[in-house]
């Protein structure tokens, strides 16, 4: 009886107390094969509601004011999001060629100029006038233009930023810069257009003419536009910045805790993407390998890189529309308090709008209004994004900015310089908050890593002390191994080991690198950062 009781107690303890840290399939690089999403309906969100909700009633689960912060979820044991519906490993993880960077998403091709483009709808989403067309190959595109006041601005921003976002791993539409005469367009019979009061009527050639009157022409009388290839699948509305989609069985991590969304703050700051509202994302129901599932896209990059799509971006870009504290300071100081952004200086470059780097401080950058994913970000979320931003070399940035096809070379040079300088500020800001060591690997039983701060010439090499411990995978207990302070794995016995890396000058910043020794080979299975 005693033996039975003991076994039962052991079973109970194993059930309730077991804290197995690593499974055999860790680290999981890809999300498990998605389950079939039987039904997901299109539902449209309200941008007014989104603004009010996030401004005055922060939704989702925010970080506690005290105690342990909520770490990012939806990541593997190495700290990276699993590849899949939200994000894919790209440039940082496997350096993309110049052609790949300039190409952007692999799907789609520019609309064919052989034959007319048939207008099948007038765009009534977003802020710019535009059309939906099909080309002679029956591919459909959203056509978006620049404002008269800022030729090339929004289209260049859309082209450039969509490629950066793609290289950073996000799903984005394939955007192409096109130039065409008015004669390129014809209207399909029965196409309707909503007038300024929302009433629909049949679209006429005059409507086409009136839309084109509001957009700039180039020297040859052609119209420059972004042709955004229709996404492959059925669009079903934007994902929110919090919670999960109620109809998506695969969407199990609250969005405010996704690392790929928390880290987006850093990327949006770098590219000046302050219009990162929920409605500028979209979910698409796709079918691949016989499975229907939802893929999440980032959209509408016309409001980046100094552009606000319809006009140059506001100098307020980078701060919230409204915050009680800032507004009170401004109101009661009678304007004597001058926020940093009001002092920024911008060159007169209409095709850029307002982009600069001198007053840019990544950590104080904000989108137009709060969102819980950005608010929840932690230093390891920021580092994850910053290391990817830093992966763009000067030449990479030049290559992507070239896809903006600026006719003003001063504008192109300014965008390149700004992005390089802003990138470096991103690196300085976020590499200082955690030990900037990454890309851990075991080779010849030796633990190797890359000091990203040193690699990018941001600071002197980190002075790193290392201590190996045995690691109990079931209880997470660590037993330091005396004298095991070198890079070489201390023992060849199967099991788990952890190397704690620390810089004595920054004692709170540590990294635990977990190594699994099995079948004669050792491999890094986990990375945890503290700060």
């Amino acid at each position: 009886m005693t033996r039975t009781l003991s076994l039962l107690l052991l079973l109970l303890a194993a059930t309730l107390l077991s804290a197995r840290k690593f499974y055999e399939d860790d680290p999981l690089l890809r999300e498990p094969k998605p389950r079939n999403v039987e039904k997901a309906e299109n539902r449209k969100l309200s941008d007014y509601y989104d603004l009010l909700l996030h401004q005055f009633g922060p939704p989702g689960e925010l970080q506690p004011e005290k105690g342990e912060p909520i770490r990012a979820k939806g990541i593997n044991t190495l700290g990276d999001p699993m590849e899949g519906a939200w994000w894919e490993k790209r440039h940082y993880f496997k350096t993309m060629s110049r052609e790949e960077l300039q190409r952007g998403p692999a799907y789609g091709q520019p609309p064919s100029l052989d034959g007319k483009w048939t207008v099948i709808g007038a765009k009534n989403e977003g802020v710019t006038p535009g059309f939906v067309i099909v080309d002679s190959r029956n591919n459909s595109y959203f056509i978006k233009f620049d404002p008269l006041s800022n030729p090339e601005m929004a289209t260049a921003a859309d082209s450039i930023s969509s490629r950066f976002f793609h290289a950073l791993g996000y799903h984005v539409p394939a955007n192409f810069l096109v130039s065409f005469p008015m004669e390129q367009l014809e209207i399909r019979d029965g196409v309707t257009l909503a007038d300024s009061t929302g009433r629909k009527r049949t679209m006429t050639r005059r409507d086409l003419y009136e839309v084109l009157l509001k957009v700039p022409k180039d020297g040859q009388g052609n119209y420059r536009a972004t042709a955004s290839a229709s996404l492959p699948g059925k669009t079903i509305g934007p994902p929110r910045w919090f919670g999960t989609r109620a109809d998506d069985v695969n969407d199990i991590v609250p969005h405010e805790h996704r690392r790929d969304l928390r880290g987006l703050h850093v990327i949006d700051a770098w590219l000046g993407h302050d219009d990162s509202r929920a409605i500028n994302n979209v979910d698409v129901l796709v079918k691949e390998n016989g499975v229907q599932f939802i893929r999440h896209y980032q959209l509408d990059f016309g409001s980046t890189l100094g552009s606000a799509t319809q006009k140059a971006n506001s100098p307020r870009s980078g701060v919230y529309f409204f915050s009680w504290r800032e507004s009170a300071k401004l109101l009661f100081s009678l304007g004597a308090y001058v926020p940093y952004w009001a002092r920024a200086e911008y060159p007169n470059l209409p095709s850029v709008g307002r982009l600069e780097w001198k007053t840019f401080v990544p950590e104080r950058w904000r989108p137009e209004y709060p969102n819980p994913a950005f608010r929840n970000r932690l230093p390891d979320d920021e580092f994850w994004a910053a290391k990817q931003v830093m992966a763009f070399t000067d030449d990479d940035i030049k290559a992507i900015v070239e896809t903006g096809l600026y006719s003003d070379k001063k504008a192109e040079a300014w965008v390149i310089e700004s992005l390089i300088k802003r990138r470096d500020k991103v690196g300085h800001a976020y590499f200082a908050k955690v030990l900037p060591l990454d890309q851990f690997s075991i080779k010849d039983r030796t633990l190797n890593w890359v000091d990203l701060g040193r690699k990018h010439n941001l600071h002197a090499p980190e002075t790193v002390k290392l201590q190996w411990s045995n690691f109990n995978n079931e209880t997470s207990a660590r037993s330091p191994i005396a004298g095991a302070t070198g890079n070489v794995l201390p023992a060849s016995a199967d099991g788990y080991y952890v190397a704690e890396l620390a810089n004595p000058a920054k004692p709170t910043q540590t990294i635990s690198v977990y190594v699994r020794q099995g079948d004669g080979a050792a491999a890094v299975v986990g990375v945890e950062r503290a700060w």
Partner: protein
Amino acid sequence: MLRTFSLTVLAISAAFPQAPSRTQQIEQERDKKAALLKPEVVTKEEGFLRNFKDKKYLERFAAGYNGLRASVGNMVVGSGFAFGPEYYREDLRGGELTFRASAQTSLRGYLKFDTQVTLPRLANSRVNVDLRATYRNYGAIDYYGLGPDSRKTGRSHYRLEDTTLETVLTFKPTRHVRLGPSLAYLATNVGPGTRSRQFISTEKQYNIPGIDQQTDFIRTGAYAQYDYRDNPLGPKNGGNYVVNYSWFNDQKLNQYNFRRLDVDFQQFIGFFNRTRVIALRAKGSFTDTDRNEQIPFYLLPVLGGANDLRGYRNFRFSDRNMVLYNAEYRWEVFAGLDGAIFVDAGKVSSRRGLATNFNKLESSVGFGLRFNARNTTFMRIDTAFSHEGFQVWFQFNDIFNQRKFGTTVGQPIY
């Protein structure tokens, strides 16, 4: 007992199964989600706001039904809230013709009927023709007597009634320049005010030109405007300079012929990325008559009120000449709100020479808030102080963005 304990342990173990792999752990989470799947919906509140925008309720309200819509405001200061129906079409002849007709009354019983036909796109939009007919019947316009020394206690009121038929031709030779002639027929009438229980009627207190005999006028004029403001509806930088000259020819009594020069110079100096603006205005009206001719009191320049000298009551001063200086410092509080502190100074005078020096200026200081939408001030609250007390103004306009010269009623009180 052991059996019960065993069953309990097994049940707990079953309830908290250990996943054999990370993949299984994720699949367990998916299992849980699968049991809770439901359609994505938006709340009623979100649905309402979404429809409000998508179905363009505000735009539809503003546009009305088949051109019929509500007309709100745009009446003389002191009228109280004004409203009425308006028929407006800007799509006639393919947008080549605009028609507007409105009838308004206000909380104080003022009336205004207005009809306007505009040809906005002549000569490749370089020429604009405006035809307008306006009837106004304002029951209680304040009058305090003539000259700079009129007393606050001398408040009286009168009924102002007039009908104007007017045409204005505008040329736009360059992007910033507008100029053109105007021609109008103006039929006027004044009478006892409608607030006789509160204030004395003007004719009982003042014996002034125009109080007893009424006439009609032909008004001819010419104006020129140089406008390089960055955004005329909410300027942060640039300037707007307008000069308007009018000849008023008495058609009945031949004793009220006069000439009037109106100038309105505005300059906006934006700094700190145009989040701070110093707005300056110098405005003047100068009249002139031949010997023995007079100017009816209701066509004399006026000063005081929500749109000029804000520390004083509406139309507090009146005389043949008027100058006004405004200086505002505006600062952005957030995207929808500006703060402002301001100084106003001005005076009226019987002689032009006295008006154009800086002696004996009446002045007021104050502060205000400007509420903005789409870079346009749609509402302002100003509190102004002068030696005659303080005034609080609640207005639906930008103080400097009053009327377009040459394209609306040419009277001082509008």
